[in-house]
């Protein structure tokens, strides 16, 4: 008996007509998506950023190595005292004291 009543309710609920979609709904969705895209800051992951700038970082590192090597070589050929010589001198003075 009670099952019959439940079935009647479910059958009647099945007959309910779906609502009419308000006009301009699709356009409102589009606006919401555009606004969301503008308001959200673009977050780039560390690895993505590294990947994107990898060539630049490589060139910069290579340039730094070349410059250091060139300075070292030029100082080796000129007989001016370098920082290394000064440090060595200070150490030996201290040990002999």
């Amino acid at each position, binding site marked *: 008996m009670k099952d019959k009543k*439940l079935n009647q309710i*479910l059958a009647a*609920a099945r007959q*309910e007509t779906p*609502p009419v979609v308000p006009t301009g*709904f*699709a356009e409102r*969705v589009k606006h919401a998506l555009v606004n969301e895209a503008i308001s959200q800051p673009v977050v780039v992951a560390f690895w993505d950023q590294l990947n994107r700038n990898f060539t630049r970082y490589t060139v910069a590192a290579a340039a730094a190595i070349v410059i250091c090597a060139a300075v070292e070589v030029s100082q080796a050929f000129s007989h001016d005292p370098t920082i290394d010589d000064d440090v060595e001198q200070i150490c030996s003075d201290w040990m002999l004291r």
Partner: protein
Amino acid sequence: MVNDDAELVARVRAGSSDAYTELVRNNQQQVFSILHRYERDLHLVEDLAQETFTKAWRALASFDGRAPFQHWLSRIAVHVALDHVRRRKRLSGTVSLPDLGEDSVAWLRDELPPRELEARQAREILELAMQSLSPAEQVVITLMEIEGRTVKEICSLTGDSSVAVRVRAMRARTKLRKAIEKLEATENER
């Protein structure tokens, strides 16, 4: 429509936002129909539909095209509905449901012939009776008994196993029957 949708999805992926508006137009009625089963307030239904299409837009990269776009979108709509039912259930202690209308009460008291129950009244009674069900049970019983979907379809839409769907449907029916009996008793006492 299916081919149209596949073509539109390809255009959206190529960067056309107008294609997505077209995709929304093609599928909006279906999404509204699904969501309206869980919410009577049309403004809220519109908000939920917007949430569905926003989520679909964000997840479009994961759409592999194995199933039709419409089916993929229905799955998102069902999950949005489930979240909504969960939120409503959490608030059910603070928000009171409207009382039943006179016609619904008359029908419960057997004062109306059985065939005279209208969809609107059935919906009123169901909404009250559904309060005794868990959100997942509400979704399963709605998909099975009101939308007339098969167990296989429900599994695909909710992501649950067929055993879980069958058990939920059975429990939901029992709980609904009891809730209607209780409503009937309450209305007869008044």
